[in-house]
């Protein structure tokens, strides 16, 4: 039993065979292999099937609003930089409802890991298109097939010079675990977009389809070359898996917070400095 397993049976709401089970395993394995103390690990999620993942781990969690994983995750890290913060949600939550926060979280660069279950469909609401749904995919709402260009989170993240961008496939648990470990240990915002088969609402992008349409980047690939990374992110044909881009040495959001420069204590350990306050009040007398 790992540190993040419960000592009792739990009722999981996912369909049998769902890619989310594989991701749950990879996340727990990554945390165990990194020997992270569960008292210091906080999961933040939004709404959707992916967003339920933290329910099934023995860790702290903040399961907030649809699309709003990244603002609270950023704030939790900023309020107590000693915590390990993992924002975990689906493609609809992160790239659709939360698209604006996705862009600005990358710009802010908090030291958090952002795991996105990308199944190219809305499952919890029964099969409508997501921002990453492939063109032509027929749904109960997009009845003539999706016409819009799918959102490319990897290319967008590289365009925003994100500090860590990776893609994984849920079917390969070992590789996914390794990528998540790299993302967690990376200092700065780390995106891990994980292809996740949805066995109920996506009969096109199946385990087999993902296997046929992906390949793993080999050791000769240099993830620090931004232009090469952008080419990889946008090249037609098969999708590359692995760490696609790393920008090292980028200051984090917490690094930029002036209050921690003199005093590293997290916010909960602080009290009102009466002398400073009295001084501020008295400065209004002159």
């Amino acid at each position, binding site marked *: 039993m790992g540190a993040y397993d419960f000592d009792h049976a739990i009722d999981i*709401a996912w369909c049998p065979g769902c890619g989310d089970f594989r991701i749950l395993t990879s996340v727990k394995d990554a945390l165990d292999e990194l020997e992270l103390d*569960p*008292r*210091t690990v*906080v999961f*933040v999620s939004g*709404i959707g099937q992916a967003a*339920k993942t*933290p*329910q099934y781990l*023995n*860790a*702290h*969690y*903040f*399961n*907030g*609003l649809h699309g*709003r994983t*990244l*603002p*609270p*995750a*950023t*704030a*939790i*890290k*900023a*309020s*107590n930089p*000693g*915590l390990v913060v993992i924002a975990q949600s689906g493609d609809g939550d992160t790239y659709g409802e939360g698209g*604006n*926060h996705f*862009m*600005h979280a990358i710009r802010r660069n908090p030291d958090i890991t952002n795991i996105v279950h990308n199944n190219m469909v809305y499952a919890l609401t029964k099969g409508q298109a997501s921002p990453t749904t492939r063109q032509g995919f027929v749904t109960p709402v997009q009845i003539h097939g999706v016409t819009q260009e799918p959102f490319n989170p990897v290319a967008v993240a590289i365009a925003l010079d994100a500090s860590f961008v990776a893609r994984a496939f849920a079917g390969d648990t070992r590789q996914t675990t390794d990528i998540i470990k790299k993302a967690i240990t990376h200092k700065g915002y780390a995106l891990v977009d994980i292809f996740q088969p949805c066995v109920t609402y996506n009969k096109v992008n199946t385990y087999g389809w993902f296997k046929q349409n992906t390949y793993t980047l080999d050791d000769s690939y240099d993830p620090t070359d931004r232009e090469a990374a952008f080419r990889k992110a946008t090249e037609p044909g098969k999708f590359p898996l692995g760490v696609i881009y790393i920008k090292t040495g980028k200051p984090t959001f917490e690094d930029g*917070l*002036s*209050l921690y*420069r*003199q*005093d590293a204590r*997290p*916010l*909960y*350990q*602080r*009290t*009102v*400095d*009466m002398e*400073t*306050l*009295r001084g*501020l*009040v008295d400065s*209004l*007398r*002159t």
Partner: protein
Amino acid sequence: MVFKPREDISIVFSGQAGQGLQTLEALLTRMLKRSGYNVFSYSEYMSRIRGGNNSTQVRVSSRRVTAYTRRIDLFVPLHENAMERFHDRITQETVILGDRDFIEERYLDGHHPVLEVPINEIAREKGGAVYANTVLLGILAGLFYVDSDLMHNEIRMILSGLGEDRLRKNLDASDEGYERSKKLLKPGQAAVSIERTAEVRDEILTDGINAVGLGGLAGGCTFVSSYPMSPSTGVLVFFTKKAESSGVVVEQTEDEISAVNMAIGSWYAGGRALVTTSGGGYALMVEGLSLAGCIESPLVIHLGQRPGPATGLPTRTEQADLQFALYSGHGEFSRAILAPGTHEQGFSHTRHAFYLADKYQVPVFILTDQFFLERRYNLPDLDMSKMYDQRFIVQTRADYRRYALTESGISPRGIPGFGEGRVRVDSDEHDEDGFITEDFSTRTAMVNKRLKKLSGLQKEVLAPQLFGPDDYRNLVVCWGSSLHAVQEGLDMLGRDDTAILHYSQVYPLAEVTADYLERAHRKIVVESNATAQFARLIRSETGIGFDGAILKYSGLPLMPEDVCEGLNEKLGKKESTHGRV
């Protein structure tokens, strides 16, 4: 006497955006206060960066003054169109001072007292038109018998960033104005008859922004996330300036949705967070409010009201978001709404908001408005006796349950990283551990838990304040920033059978409300909105209606004259006997 002998003089200067009226306002109020006068100032301005017409009222007085008046005793036009919007406020008792070019013909008919001073010409002689404001400052310093050294000190303090040459020219310009003011008086003639008080010199001179900001620091605020929106932005700027010295995380977010979700995230991790916004921005935060309600997160929302709907009048004032603050957020949960009336309350109530939010794990509003935030006046002190020292966070044990059911509805609040337990919060309905549940009896228990906290909040309600006789015949009810206009308006009316009941907490409604209202023969409500929102709240809570309402929603602040005339009309003749019948 240049001015009618009065205890207070209302000065209005009127110019364009970009003419430096704000600097003049700061210099003049500081200088007058430092020389012992009670001062008040408020600027009304258009939503533009250059041009248009803006004006600032500065009241100088023997006693404390805190309201914006229609009456103008001294009008200073600083631009060609400066008088256009003031025809109904300039009377034959208003002294007009300034450049001949800026005074409209109609006021040169011999029936209006005019003091012509070529302010711009003097400014040009002293180095350029930019010195016009300090020439005017010098003239006013002279008319109000301000010591010239004191005037110089203030100019040095406020304009120190200009560099030595321009500072020197400003000082010269003020000296020239000061000299000219003496020539405006006939031999032996005095300009004003306002008494000065030594104690006032060292009093606090503040606007509402500083009062709310300092109250936040006093309440232990450590996190502010917001998106700029008039008139709430000043509070964000306040915290930005204090971030390093007072230990506050301050972030300008991509939108108000992010702001509120960050604030809730910070509370979850042990921060004490505030968002500052106005109606439109708050509209975007509403789902977050409901989140705070569901996960029982503390949250402090400073809602600086301005006239809506939609973009409305961005730079003007109104009290029309009370019902919005009260009913916003889907689902049912407890909340509290504070509405400070004075700057002392701006400080104490913001501090109190952090206490209530933390103790009851609910959203708490500080409902202000543009007038409240931007008017400034002097006051003796801020009450620093009840500081934030109570901590409501617990160190968790391994068996910690975030939503443990209790008698009061309040569960001990743990945070991640402090103790052995897991802290799970969920926007889905959840059980005592914080796990998602669809168990109907748990659901019912959780709704009851969230609503039960209202009775605790009710026990701690800040009581409304009664001003005037206990045995009143008429009762005038007001809330938030309307207090001072109502007080001064009633003074003008001079009725001793009428009292004022002012609410600085509007929700939960104080239980004494019905008692106060039932004792009154006539009940009048005064509010800066069109639909008497507070009266509706009182009626829904007590079943008691009002006999009349004085409502203002033009975008300008409520004035004592509005209240005096309104009450005069609504109260009718004073009865020979007053009090309870």
